[in-house]
Protein backbone atom coordinates (compact mmCIF):
# COMPACT_ATOMS: atom_id res chain seq x y z
CA UNK A 1 0.00 0.00 0.00
CA UNK A 2 1.38 3.39 -0.83
CA UNK A 3 1.37 6.61 1.12
CA UNK A 4 -1.50 8.60 -0.36
CA UNK A 5 -4.20 5.91 -0.30
CA UNK A 6 -3.27 5.09 3.31
CA UNK A 7 -3.73 8.73 4.25
CA UNK A 8 -6.99 9.14 2.33
CA UNK A 9 -8.55 5.94 3.71
CA UNK A 10 -7.51 6.87 7.22
CA UNK A 11 -8.95 10.38 6.91
CA UNK A 12 -12.27 9.08 5.53
CA UNK A 13 -12.90 6.66 8.37
CA UNK A 14 -11.49 9.24 10.79
CA UNK A 15 -14.23 11.72 9.89
CA UNK A 16 -16.91 9.16 10.76
CA UNK A 17 -15.15 8.19 14.00
CA UNK A 18 -15.04 11.87 14.84
CA UNK A 19 -18.76 12.27 14.20
CA UNK A 20 -19.65 9.45 16.62
CA UNK A 21 -17.22 10.78 19.21
CA UNK A 22 -18.66 14.28 18.86
CA UNK A 23 -22.00 12.92 20.04
CA UNK A 24 -20.39 11.34 23.07
CA UNK A 25 -18.45 14.47 23.92
CA UNK A 26 -21.51 16.71 23.49
CA UNK A 27 -23.43 14.55 25.95
CA UNK A 28 -20.56 14.62 28.42
CA UNK A 29 -20.10 18.37 28.05
CA UNK A 30 -23.72 19.25 28.70
CA UNK A 31 -24.99 16.45 30.96
CA UNK A 32 -21.69 15.38 32.61
CA UNK A 33 -22.70 11.82 31.78
CA UNK A 34 -20.47 9.22 30.14
CA UNK A 35 -22.99 7.62 27.82
CA UNK A 36 -22.39 3.87 27.89
CA UNK A 37 -25.37 3.40 25.55
CA UNK A 38 -23.53 5.22 22.76
CA UNK A 39 -22.56 1.98 21.04
CA UNK A 40 -26.13 0.77 20.84
CA UNK A 41 -27.11 4.14 19.35
CA UNK A 42 -24.48 3.62 16.64
CA UNK A 43 -25.94 0.16 16.06
CA UNK A 44 -29.40 1.71 15.93
CA UNK A 45 -28.17 3.92 13.10
CA UNK A 46 -26.72 0.95 11.24
CA UNK A 47 -29.80 -1.23 11.54
CA UNK A 48 -32.19 1.68 11.03
CA UNK A 49 -30.54 2.41 7.70
CA UNK A 50 -30.37 -1.27 6.80
CA UNK A 51 -34.05 -1.94 7.52
CA UNK A 52 -35.29 1.23 5.86
CA UNK A 53 -33.30 0.69 2.70
CA UNK A 54 -33.75 -3.08 2.30
CA UNK A 55 -37.37 -3.44 3.42
CA UNK A 56 -38.83 -0.12 2.29
CA UNK A 57 -36.47 0.21 -0.68
CA UNK A 58 -35.57 3.75 0.31
CA UNK A 59 -32.44 5.37 -1.02
CA UNK A 60 -29.83 4.95 1.79
CA UNK A 61 -29.20 8.68 2.03
CA UNK A 62 -32.90 9.44 2.30
CA UNK A 63 -33.04 6.74 4.96
CA UNK A 64 -30.14 8.45 6.72
CA UNK A 65 -32.26 11.55 7.24
CA UNK A 66 -35.00 9.43 8.81
CA UNK A 67 -32.38 7.66 10.92
CA UNK A 68 -31.17 11.04 12.19
CA UNK A 69 -34.71 12.00 13.23
CA UNK A 70 -35.14 8.58 14.84
CA UNK A 71 -31.87 9.05 16.72
CA UNK A 72 -32.93 12.45 18.02
CA UNK A 73 -36.31 11.12 19.14
CA UNK A 74 -35.04 7.98 20.81
CA UNK A 75 -32.28 9.93 22.53
CA UNK A 76 -34.79 12.32 24.07
CA UNK A 77 -37.00 9.41 25.07
CA UNK A 78 -34.06 7.66 26.75
CA UNK A 79 -33.24 10.84 28.63
CA UNK A 80 -36.74 11.16 30.07
CA UNK A 81 -37.15 7.45 30.84
CA UNK A 82 -33.72 6.50 32.11
CA UNK A 83 -31.51 9.50 32.79
CA UNK A 84 -33.58 12.31 34.20
CA UNK A 85 -33.80 10.82 37.69
CA UNK A 86 -30.02 10.31 37.87
CA UNK A 87 -29.03 13.88 36.98
CA UNK A 88 -28.43 14.88 40.60
CA UNK A 89 -27.22 11.45 41.78
CA UNK A 90 -23.58 10.30 42.00
CA UNK A 91 -21.69 9.33 38.82
CA UNK A 92 -22.34 5.64 39.26
CA UNK A 93 -26.09 6.06 38.80
CA UNK A 94 -25.90 7.66 35.38
CA UNK A 95 -23.16 5.25 34.24
CA UNK A 96 -25.27 2.28 35.27
CA UNK A 97 -28.49 3.76 33.88
CA UNK A 98 -26.97 4.25 30.43
CA UNK A 99 -25.38 0.82 30.62
CA UNK A 100 -28.77 -0.67 31.50
CA UNK A 101 -30.25 0.97 28.39
CA UNK A 102 -27.38 -0.53 26.41
CA UNK A 103 -28.12 -3.99 27.81
CA UNK A 104 -31.82 -3.68 26.98
CA UNK A 105 -31.19 -2.55 23.39
CA UNK A 106 -28.41 -5.07 22.71
CA UNK A 107 -30.49 -7.83 24.33
CA UNK A 108 -33.54 -7.12 22.20
CA UNK A 109 -31.39 -6.58 19.11
CA UNK A 110 -29.54 -9.86 19.53
CA UNK A 111 -32.77 -11.77 20.06
CA UNK A 112 -34.33 -10.19 16.95
CA UNK A 113 -31.46 -10.00 14.47
CA UNK A 114 -28.92 -12.55 15.88
CA UNK A 115 -25.27 -11.55 15.73
CA UNK A 116 -24.58 -12.46 12.10
CA UNK A 117 -22.92 -9.85 9.91
CA UNK A 118 -25.02 -7.69 7.60
CA UNK A 119 -24.05 -5.78 4.58
CA UNK A 120 -25.84 -3.09 2.61
CA UNK A 121 -26.04 -3.98 -1.06
CA UNK A 122 -25.28 -0.55 -2.34
CA UNK A 123 -22.46 1.19 -4.18
CA UNK A 124 -21.91 4.62 -5.65
CA UNK A 125 -19.00 3.79 -7.89
CA UNK A 126 -15.57 5.04 -7.07
CA UNK A 127 -13.50 8.12 -7.54
CA UNK A 128 -9.98 7.68 -8.95
CA UNK A 129 -6.97 9.82 -8.16
CA UNK A 130 -3.29 9.21 -8.89
CA UNK A 131 -2.45 5.78 -7.54
CA UNK A 132 -5.57 5.07 -5.57
CA UNK A 133 -9.34 5.04 -5.58
CA UNK A 134 -11.95 5.95 -3.04
CA UNK A 135 -15.48 4.59 -2.99
CA UNK A 136 -18.31 7.05 -3.48
CA UNK A 137 -19.91 6.11 -0.17
CA UNK A 138 -16.76 7.05 1.75
CA UNK A 139 -16.61 10.39 -0.04
CA UNK A 140 -20.25 11.09 0.79
CA UNK A 141 -19.54 10.14 4.41
CA UNK A 142 -16.81 12.77 4.58
CA UNK A 143 -19.07 15.47 3.17
CA UNK A 144 -21.97 14.40 5.39
CA UNK A 145 -19.73 14.65 8.45
CA UNK A 146 -18.51 18.08 7.42
CA UNK A 147 -22.10 19.17 6.81
CA UNK A 148 -23.40 17.86 10.13
CA UNK A 149 -20.44 19.35 12.01
CA UNK A 150 -20.86 22.80 10.53
CA UNK A 151 -24.63 22.57 11.06
CA UNK A 152 -24.04 21.70 14.70
CA UNK A 153 -21.53 24.52 15.08
CA UNK A 154 -23.89 27.10 13.58
CA UNK A 155 -26.74 25.77 15.71
CA UNK A 156 -24.74 26.01 18.93
CA UNK A 157 -23.22 29.37 18.08
CA UNK A 158 -26.10 31.37 16.65
CA UNK A 159 -29.54 30.03 17.56
CA UNK A 160 -31.06 30.81 20.93
CA UNK A 161 -31.61 27.10 21.67
CA UNK A 162 -27.93 26.54 20.92
CA UNK A 163 -27.03 29.31 23.33
CA UNK A 164 -29.25 27.70 25.98
CA UNK A 165 -27.36 24.44 25.49
CA UNK A 166 -24.03 26.18 25.97
CA UNK A 167 -25.35 27.99 29.03
CA UNK A 168 -26.51 24.72 30.61
CA UNK A 169 -23.14 23.16 29.80
CA UNK A 170 -21.36 26.04 31.53
CA UNK A 171 -23.45 26.12 34.66
CA UNK A 172 -26.78 24.38 34.93
CA UNK A 173 -27.92 26.16 38.10
CA UNK A 174 -27.07 29.61 36.84
CA UNK A 175 -28.87 28.79 33.59
CA UNK A 176 -31.97 27.78 35.55
CA UNK A 177 -31.77 31.05 37.49
CA UNK A 178 -32.06 33.08 34.30
CA UNK A 179 -35.07 31.05 33.24
CA UNK A 180 -33.65 28.47 30.84
CA UNK A 181 -35.77 25.29 30.89
CA UNK A 182 -32.84 23.04 31.80
CA UNK A 183 -34.71 19.73 31.68
CA UNK A 184 -35.78 20.07 28.07
CA UNK A 185 -32.34 21.42 27.14
CA UNK A 186 -30.68 18.39 28.74
CA UNK A 187 -33.08 16.10 26.88
CA UNK A 188 -32.41 17.90 23.61
CA UNK A 189 -28.65 17.67 24.13
CA UNK A 190 -28.85 13.96 24.80
CA UNK A 191 -31.04 13.62 21.71
CA UNK A 192 -28.51 15.54 19.59
CA UNK A 193 -25.68 13.38 20.90
CA UNK A 194 -27.47 10.16 20.01
CA UNK A 195 -28.47 11.66 16.66
CA UNK A 196 -24.79 12.13 15.81
CA UNK A 197 -24.11 8.53 16.88
CA UNK A 198 -26.99 7.27 14.72
CA UNK A 199 -25.79 9.25 11.68
CA UNK A 200 -22.26 7.92 12.17
CA UNK A 201 -23.64 4.39 12.41
CA UNK A 202 -25.72 4.88 9.27
CA UNK A 203 -22.70 6.22 7.35
CA UNK A 204 -20.53 3.29 8.46
CA UNK A 205 -23.25 0.90 7.31
CA UNK A 206 -23.02 2.28 3.77
CA UNK A 207 -19.44 1.09 3.30
CA UNK A 208 -18.55 -1.52 5.95
CA UNK A 209 -20.27 -4.73 7.07
CA UNK A 210 -21.72 -4.65 10.58
CA UNK A 211 -23.33 -6.79 13.29
CA UNK A 212 -25.63 -5.98 16.17
CA UNK A 213 -22.58 -5.86 18.45
CA UNK A 214 -20.49 -3.62 16.16
CA UNK A 215 -21.55 -0.48 18.02
CA UNK A 216 -19.51 -1.54 21.05
CA UNK A 217 -16.26 -1.41 19.07
CA UNK A 218 -17.00 2.09 17.78
CA UNK A 219 -18.08 3.16 21.26
CA UNK A 220 -14.69 2.19 22.67
CA UNK A 221 -13.02 4.07 19.83
CA UNK A 222 -15.20 7.06 20.67
CA UNK A 223 -13.94 7.01 24.26
CA UNK A 224 -10.35 7.02 23.05
CA UNK A 225 -11.10 9.86 20.64
CA UNK A 226 -12.95 11.97 23.22
CA UNK A 227 -10.13 11.70 25.70
CA UNK A 228 -7.62 12.41 22.95
CA UNK A 229 -9.39 15.59 21.89
CA UNK A 230 -10.52 16.63 25.37
CA UNK A 231 -13.78 15.38 26.91
CA UNK A 232 -16.53 17.89 26.27
CA UNK A 233 -14.86 19.55 23.30
CA UNK A 234 -16.68 18.78 20.00
CA UNK A 235 -13.94 20.11 17.70
CA UNK A 236 -11.39 18.16 19.71
CA UNK A 237 -13.47 15.05 19.05
CA UNK A 238 -13.35 15.63 15.29
CA UNK A 239 -9.59 16.17 15.45
CA UNK A 240 -9.19 13.09 17.65
CA UNK A 241 -11.23 11.06 15.17
CA UNK A 242 -8.99 12.15 12.31
CA UNK A 243 -5.88 11.31 14.32
CA UNK A 244 -7.19 7.85 15.16
CA UNK A 245 -8.31 7.22 11.59
CA UNK A 246 -4.97 8.30 10.12
CA UNK A 247 -3.17 6.22 12.75
CA UNK A 248 -5.17 3.16 11.68
CA UNK A 249 -4.49 3.94 8.03
CA UNK A 250 -0.77 4.51 8.50
CA UNK A 251 0.16 1.68 10.84
CA UNK A 252 0.01 -1.00 8.12
CA UNK A 253 1.94 1.40 5.86
CA UNK A 254 4.85 2.18 8.17
CA UNK A 255 4.96 -1.16 9.98
CA UNK A 256 3.87 -3.72 7.38
CA UNK A 257 5.05 -6.59 9.59
CA UNK A 258 2.88 -5.57 12.52
CA UNK A 259 -0.24 -7.76 12.70
CA UNK A 260 -3.60 -5.95 12.79
CA UNK A 261 -4.27 -7.19 16.28
CA UNK A 262 -1.67 -4.76 17.65
CA UNK A 263 -3.76 -1.74 16.61
CA UNK A 264 -6.10 -1.98 19.65
CA UNK A 265 -3.08 -2.33 21.96
CA UNK A 266 -1.65 0.92 20.61
CA UNK A 267 -5.04 2.67 20.69
CA UNK A 268 -5.82 1.77 24.29
CA UNK A 269 -2.24 2.33 25.33
CA UNK A 270 -2.48 5.83 23.86
CA UNK A 271 -5.78 6.29 25.67
CA UNK A 272 -4.31 5.43 29.07
CA UNK A 273 -1.21 7.53 28.45
CA UNK A 274 -3.29 10.57 27.49
CA UNK A 275 -5.51 10.11 30.56
CA UNK A 276 -2.45 9.97 32.77
CA UNK A 277 -0.34 12.76 31.38
CA UNK A 278 -2.80 15.08 29.72
CA UNK A 279 -6.29 14.29 31.01
CA UNK A 280 -7.60 17.50 29.45
CA UNK A 281 -6.77 16.17 25.97
CA UNK A 282 -5.05 17.85 23.05
CA UNK A 283 -7.42 20.79 22.68
CA UNK A 284 -8.33 21.04 26.36
CA UNK A 285 -11.40 19.64 28.05
CA UNK A 286 -14.39 21.68 29.06
CA UNK A 287 -13.88 22.56 32.71
Amino acid sequence: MSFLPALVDGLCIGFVYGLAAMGLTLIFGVLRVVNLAHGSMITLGMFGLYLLSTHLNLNPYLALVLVAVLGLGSGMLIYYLALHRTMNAPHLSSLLATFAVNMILVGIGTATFSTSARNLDFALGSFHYGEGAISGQRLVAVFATLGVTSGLYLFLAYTSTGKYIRAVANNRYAAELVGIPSTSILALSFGLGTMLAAIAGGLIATFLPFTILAGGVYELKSFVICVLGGLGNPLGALLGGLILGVLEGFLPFFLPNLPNTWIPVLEFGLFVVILLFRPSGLLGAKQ
Partner: protein
Amino acid sequence: MKRWQNSGLWLMLALLLVGGLWPAFTHNQANREMVYTILLSIVLASSLNIMLGYTGYVSFGHVVFFGLGGYVGMFLLHNHHFPLWSAALAGGIAAGLLAFLLGKAILRLRGAFFALATIGINEAIRALINNLTLFGGPAGISLNFNIYKDYGGAGEALWLVYYATLFLALATIFLSYAIKTSKFGLGLLAIREDEEAAEVIGIVTPRAKTWAYVLSAFIPGIVGVLFFFKNGNIEPSDAFRLHFSIEMLVMIMLGGQGTVLGPLLGATGYQFLRGFLLTNSFFKDIQLAVAGFLLLIIVLFIPAGAVGWLKRRFTLLQEVLP
Protein backbone atom coordinates in the same frame (compact mmCIF):
# COMPACT_ATOMS: atom_id res chain seq x y z
CA MET B 1 -12.94 -5.37 70.71
CA LYS B 2 -16.60 -4.51 70.41
CA ARG B 3 -16.53 -4.63 66.65
CA TRP B 4 -16.07 -8.39 66.68
CA GLN B 5 -19.26 -8.82 68.70
CA ASN B 6 -21.53 -7.89 65.83
CA SER B 7 -24.07 -10.72 65.61
CA GLY B 8 -24.92 -9.80 62.00
CA LEU B 9 -21.39 -10.60 60.79
CA TRP B 10 -21.20 -14.01 62.47
CA LEU B 11 -24.70 -14.93 61.33
CA MET B 12 -23.73 -13.98 57.78
CA LEU B 13 -20.54 -16.05 57.85
CA ALA B 14 -22.39 -19.00 59.40
CA LEU B 15 -25.11 -18.89 56.74
CA LEU B 16 -22.50 -18.66 54.00
CA LEU B 17 -20.65 -21.64 55.47
CA VAL B 18 -23.83 -23.72 55.72
CA GLY B 19 -24.86 -22.77 52.18
CA GLY B 20 -21.36 -23.57 50.96
CA LEU B 21 -21.18 -26.95 52.68
CA TRP B 22 -24.64 -27.99 51.50
CA PRO B 23 -23.44 -29.44 48.13
CA ALA B 24 -20.68 -31.27 50.02
CA PHE B 25 -23.18 -33.09 52.23
CA THR B 26 -25.52 -33.98 49.40
CA HIS B 27 -22.51 -34.63 47.15
CA ASN B 28 -24.51 -33.31 44.24
CA GLN B 29 -22.45 -31.91 41.37
CA ALA B 30 -25.20 -29.77 39.85
CA ASN B 31 -25.74 -28.06 43.20
CA ARG B 32 -22.01 -27.64 43.56
CA GLU B 33 -21.71 -25.84 40.23
CA MET B 34 -24.58 -23.52 41.12
CA VAL B 35 -23.16 -22.65 44.54
CA TYR B 36 -19.68 -22.29 43.00
CA THR B 37 -20.96 -19.60 40.63
CA ILE B 38 -22.53 -17.78 43.56
CA LEU B 39 -19.36 -18.01 45.67
CA LEU B 40 -17.26 -16.71 42.79
CA SER B 41 -19.65 -13.77 42.37
CA ILE B 42 -19.53 -13.07 46.11
CA VAL B 43 -15.73 -12.87 46.05
CA LEU B 44 -15.65 -10.57 43.03
CA ALA B 45 -18.55 -8.31 44.02
CA SER B 46 -17.45 -8.03 47.62
CA SER B 47 -13.88 -7.15 46.71
CA LEU B 48 -15.02 -4.58 44.14
CA ASN B 49 -17.22 -3.10 46.88
CA ILE B 50 -14.09 -2.11 48.81
CA MET B 51 -13.24 0.31 45.97
CA LEU B 52 -16.72 1.19 44.84
CA GLY B 53 -18.74 1.19 48.03
CA TYR B 54 -16.21 2.29 50.63
CA THR B 55 -13.85 4.54 48.67
CA GLY B 56 -16.36 5.77 46.08
CA TYR B 57 -14.24 5.05 42.98
CA VAL B 58 -16.28 3.47 40.19
CA SER B 59 -14.20 0.80 38.48
CA PHE B 60 -15.44 -0.78 35.26
CA GLY B 61 -12.33 -2.91 34.97
CA HIS B 62 -12.34 -5.08 38.07
CA VAL B 63 -12.24 -8.21 35.91
CA VAL B 64 -8.69 -7.28 34.89
CA PHE B 65 -7.42 -8.59 38.24
CA PHE B 66 -9.34 -11.83 37.86
CA GLY B 67 -7.99 -12.27 34.33
CA LEU B 68 -4.40 -11.27 34.98
CA GLY B 69 -4.19 -13.43 38.12
CA GLY B 70 -5.66 -16.28 36.11
CA TYR B 71 -3.10 -15.83 33.34
CA VAL B 72 -0.11 -15.69 35.67
CA GLY B 73 -1.34 -18.74 37.58
CA MET B 74 -2.09 -20.76 34.44
CA PHE B 75 1.29 -19.85 32.98
CA LEU B 76 3.07 -21.11 36.11
CA LEU B 77 0.92 -24.26 36.26
CA HIS B 78 1.37 -25.13 32.61
CA ASN B 79 4.92 -24.04 31.80
CA HIS B 80 6.66 -24.38 35.13
CA HIS B 81 4.54 -27.08 36.81
CA PHE B 82 3.99 -25.09 39.97
CA PRO B 83 1.69 -26.69 42.55
CA LEU B 84 -1.80 -25.14 42.50
CA TRP B 85 -1.40 -23.36 45.85
CA SER B 86 1.72 -21.46 44.96
CA ALA B 87 0.37 -20.67 41.48
CA ALA B 88 -2.81 -19.29 43.06
CA LEU B 89 -0.80 -17.20 45.48
CA ALA B 90 1.36 -15.93 42.62
CA GLY B 91 -1.81 -14.97 40.73
CA GLY B 92 -3.02 -13.02 43.74
CA ILE B 93 0.33 -11.27 44.15
CA ALA B 94 0.45 -10.39 40.44
CA ALA B 95 -3.04 -8.87 40.66
CA GLY B 96 -2.09 -6.97 43.80
CA LEU B 97 1.08 -5.69 42.16
CA LEU B 98 -0.84 -4.52 39.11
CA ALA B 99 -3.29 -2.72 41.39
CA PHE B 100 -0.40 -1.10 43.24
CA LEU B 101 1.20 0.20 40.04
CA LEU B 102 -2.16 1.28 38.59
CA GLY B 103 -3.06 2.88 41.89
CA LYS B 104 0.04 5.06 41.75
CA ALA B 105 -1.03 6.20 38.28
CA ILE B 106 -4.79 6.29 37.69
CA LEU B 107 -6.13 6.89 41.19
CA ARG B 108 -5.29 10.56 40.67
CA LEU B 109 -8.22 10.67 38.26
CA ARG B 110 -11.67 11.30 39.65
CA GLY B 111 -15.23 10.34 38.76
CA ALA B 112 -15.91 9.56 35.13
CA PHE B 113 -12.24 9.86 34.16
CA PHE B 114 -11.28 7.07 36.55
CA ALA B 115 -14.14 4.89 35.25
CA LEU B 116 -12.99 5.46 31.66
CA ALA B 117 -9.38 4.73 32.55
CA THR B 118 -10.33 1.39 34.09
CA ILE B 119 -12.14 0.42 30.88
CA GLY B 120 -9.11 1.51 28.87
CA ILE B 121 -6.71 -0.52 30.99
CA ASN B 122 -8.85 -3.65 30.77
CA GLU B 123 -9.05 -3.35 26.98
CA ALA B 124 -5.34 -2.50 26.65
CA ILE B 125 -4.27 -5.54 28.69
CA ARG B 126 -6.71 -7.78 26.84
CA ALA B 127 -5.40 -6.61 23.47
CA LEU B 128 -1.80 -6.94 24.67
CA ILE B 129 -2.21 -10.51 25.96
CA ASN B 130 -4.01 -11.39 22.73
CA ASN B 131 -0.69 -10.65 21.02
CA LEU B 132 1.75 -12.24 23.45
CA THR B 133 2.95 -15.61 22.24
CA LEU B 134 4.31 -16.22 25.73
CA PHE B 135 0.70 -16.47 26.95
CA GLY B 136 -0.52 -18.34 23.87
CA GLY B 137 -1.98 -15.37 21.98
CA PRO B 138 -5.69 -15.54 21.09
CA ALA B 139 -5.83 -19.30 21.74
CA GLY B 140 -4.65 -18.84 25.32
CA ILE B 141 -3.24 -21.58 27.56
CA SER B 142 -4.78 -25.06 27.84
CA LEU B 143 -3.76 -27.32 30.69
CA ASN B 144 -2.57 -30.84 30.08
CA PHE B 145 -5.19 -33.20 31.51
CA ASN B 146 -2.49 -35.09 33.42
CA ILE B 147 -2.08 -32.14 35.71
CA TYR B 148 -5.27 -33.09 37.57
CA LYS B 149 -3.72 -36.44 38.56
CA ASP B 150 -1.65 -34.69 41.22
CA TYR B 151 -4.89 -33.66 42.89
CA GLY B 152 -6.56 -37.08 42.82
CA GLY B 153 -8.09 -36.86 39.34
CA ALA B 154 -10.31 -34.26 37.70
CA GLY B 155 -13.34 -35.01 39.89
CA GLU B 156 -11.42 -34.48 43.11
CA ALA B 157 -9.70 -31.38 41.74
CA LEU B 158 -13.11 -29.78 41.16
CA TRP B 159 -14.06 -30.35 44.79
CA LEU B 160 -10.71 -28.97 45.89
CA VAL B 161 -11.30 -25.78 43.89
CA TYR B 162 -14.79 -25.58 45.32
CA TYR B 163 -13.62 -25.72 48.96
CA ALA B 164 -10.86 -23.22 48.28
CA THR B 165 -13.37 -20.82 46.72
CA LEU B 166 -15.71 -21.25 49.70
CA PHE B 167 -12.84 -20.40 52.02
CA LEU B 168 -11.97 -17.34 49.92
CA ALA B 169 -15.58 -16.17 49.92
CA LEU B 170 -15.63 -16.36 53.73
CA ALA B 171 -12.27 -14.59 53.85
CA THR B 172 -13.48 -11.81 51.52
CA ILE B 173 -16.56 -11.12 53.64
CA PHE B 174 -14.41 -11.16 56.76
CA LEU B 175 -11.88 -8.81 55.17
CA SER B 176 -14.63 -6.53 53.96
CA TYR B 177 -16.00 -6.26 57.50
CA ALA B 178 -12.56 -5.83 59.03
CA ILE B 179 -11.78 -2.98 56.64
CA LYS B 180 -15.11 -1.27 57.12
CA THR B 181 -14.83 -1.21 60.91
CA SER B 182 -11.14 -0.27 61.05
CA LYS B 183 -9.58 3.18 61.21
CA PHE B 184 -8.28 2.58 57.66
CA GLY B 185 -11.85 1.88 56.51
CA LEU B 186 -13.12 5.05 58.18
CA GLY B 187 -10.49 6.90 56.17
CA LEU B 188 -11.83 5.32 52.98
CA LEU B 189 -15.40 6.30 53.84
CA ALA B 190 -14.18 9.86 54.46
CA ILE B 191 -12.57 9.86 50.99
CA ARG B 192 -15.87 8.72 49.50
CA GLU B 193 -17.75 11.58 51.14
CA ASP B 194 -15.26 14.36 50.42
CA GLU B 195 -11.69 13.73 49.34
CA GLU B 196 -10.40 17.24 50.10
CA ALA B 197 -11.91 17.23 53.57
CA ALA B 198 -10.42 13.79 54.21
CA GLU B 199 -7.01 15.14 53.29
CA VAL B 200 -7.44 18.10 55.61
CA ILE B 201 -8.15 15.88 58.63
CA GLY B 202 -4.88 14.04 58.02
CA ILE B 203 -5.69 11.02 55.84
CA VAL B 204 -2.92 10.39 53.34
CA THR B 205 -5.42 9.84 50.55
CA PRO B 206 -3.12 8.52 47.78
CA ARG B 207 -1.75 5.88 50.12
CA ALA B 208 -5.15 4.89 51.50
CA LYS B 209 -6.65 4.65 48.00
CA THR B 210 -3.76 2.59 46.69
CA TRP B 211 -3.99 0.10 49.56
CA ALA B 212 -7.74 -0.17 49.14
CA TYR B 213 -7.14 -0.93 45.45
CA VAL B 214 -4.50 -3.57 46.26
CA LEU B 215 -6.73 -5.23 48.86
CA SER B 216 -9.62 -5.33 46.40
CA ALA B 217 -7.39 -6.90 43.72
CA PHE B 218 -5.58 -9.61 45.70
CA ILE B 219 -8.36 -12.16 46.26
CA PRO B 220 -9.83 -11.84 42.72
CA GLY B 221 -6.34 -12.71 41.44
CA ILE B 222 -6.32 -15.95 43.48
CA VAL B 223 -9.87 -16.82 42.50
CA GLY B 224 -8.96 -16.25 38.85
CA VAL B 225 -6.27 -18.94 39.03
CA LEU B 226 -8.70 -21.39 40.69
CA PHE B 227 -11.43 -20.63 38.16
CA PHE B 228 -9.25 -21.16 35.09
CA PHE B 229 -7.57 -24.22 36.65
CA LYS B 230 -11.08 -25.69 37.01
CA ASN B 231 -11.91 -24.57 33.49
CA GLY B 232 -8.79 -26.18 32.01
CA ASN B 233 -8.01 -23.30 29.67
CA ILE B 234 -7.83 -19.53 29.57
CA GLU B 235 -8.39 -17.17 26.64
CA PRO B 236 -8.14 -13.37 26.49
CA SER B 237 -11.83 -13.01 25.64
CA ASP B 238 -12.85 -15.05 28.72
CA ALA B 239 -10.34 -13.55 31.10
CA PHE B 240 -10.98 -9.85 30.39
CA ARG B 241 -14.69 -9.79 29.58
CA LEU B 242 -15.88 -6.23 30.23
CA HIS B 243 -19.40 -7.55 30.65
CA PHE B 244 -18.31 -9.53 33.69
CA SER B 245 -17.16 -6.32 35.39
CA ILE B 246 -20.54 -4.80 34.77
CA GLU B 247 -22.27 -7.85 36.23
CA MET B 248 -20.30 -7.29 39.43
CA LEU B 249 -21.53 -3.69 39.52
CA VAL B 250 -25.11 -4.90 39.06
CA MET B 251 -24.72 -7.34 41.96
CA ILE B 252 -23.41 -4.59 44.23
CA MET B 253 -26.20 -2.22 43.25
CA LEU B 254 -28.78 -4.96 43.77
CA GLY B 255 -27.57 -5.71 47.29
CA GLY B 256 -26.53 -2.24 48.37
CA GLN B 257 -23.19 -0.53 47.86
CA GLY B 258 -20.97 0.29 50.80
CA THR B 259 -22.34 -2.48 53.01
CA VAL B 260 -20.76 -5.82 53.90
CA LEU B 261 -23.95 -7.80 53.42
CA GLY B 262 -24.95 -6.07 50.16
CA PRO B 263 -22.56 -7.77 47.72
CA LEU B 264 -23.29 -11.17 49.29
CA LEU B 265 -27.03 -10.69 48.96
CA GLY B 266 -26.71 -9.11 45.52
CA ALA B 267 -24.45 -11.85 44.14
CA THR B 268 -26.76 -14.59 45.39
CA GLY B 269 -29.88 -12.83 44.14
CA TYR B 270 -28.36 -12.03 40.76
CA GLN B 271 -27.16 -15.58 40.11
CA PHE B 272 -30.53 -17.10 41.07
CA LEU B 273 -32.27 -14.62 38.81
CA ARG B 274 -29.86 -15.30 35.97
CA GLY B 275 -30.33 -19.03 36.39
CA PHE B 276 -34.08 -18.57 36.25
CA LEU B 277 -33.96 -16.33 33.16
CA LEU B 278 -31.57 -18.64 31.31
CA THR B 279 -33.68 -21.74 31.87
CA ASN B 280 -37.05 -20.10 31.33
CA SER B 281 -38.18 -20.67 27.75
CA PHE B 282 -39.82 -17.25 27.49
CA PHE B 283 -36.95 -15.17 28.89
CA LYS B 284 -34.08 -17.26 27.51
CA ASP B 285 -33.46 -15.13 24.42
CA ILE B 286 -34.02 -11.75 25.99
CA GLN B 287 -32.19 -12.58 29.22
CA LEU B 288 -29.82 -9.64 28.73
CA ALA B 289 -32.65 -7.18 28.14
CA VAL B 290 -34.51 -8.33 31.27
CA ALA B 291 -31.35 -7.98 33.37
CA GLY B 292 -30.85 -4.49 31.94
CA PHE B 293 -34.42 -3.54 32.71
CA LEU B 294 -34.02 -4.70 36.33
CA LEU B 295 -30.79 -2.77 36.67
CA LEU B 296 -32.50 0.36 35.40
CA ILE B 297 -35.34 -0.04 37.89
CA ILE B 298 -32.88 -0.47 40.77
CA VAL B 299 -30.72 2.49 39.75
CA LEU B 300 -33.71 4.78 39.31
CA PHE B 301 -35.91 3.79 42.22
CA ILE B 302 -33.88 1.88 44.85
CA PRO B 303 -30.34 3.29 44.50
CA ALA B 304 -29.43 2.13 48.02
CA GLY B 305 -30.08 -1.51 47.08
CA ALA B 306 -31.78 -4.22 49.10
CA VAL B 307 -29.77 -3.65 52.28
CA GLY B 308 -30.27 0.10 52.15
CA TRP B 309 -33.97 -0.39 51.65
CA LEU B 310 -34.20 -2.85 54.55
CA LYS B 311 -32.29 -0.51 56.84
CA ARG B 312 -34.58 2.38 56.04
CA ARG B 313 -37.68 0.30 56.37
CA PHE B 314 -36.79 -1.48 59.61
CA THR B 315 -34.73 0.83 61.80
CA LEU B 316 -34.04 -2.05 64.19
CA LEU B 317 -31.83 -3.64 61.53
CA GLN B 318 -29.56 -0.61 61.36
CA GLU B 319 -27.51 -1.81 64.32
CA VAL B 320 -27.33 -5.43 63.21
CA LEU B 321 -26.67 -5.35 59.45
CA PRO B 322 -23.02 -4.64 58.75
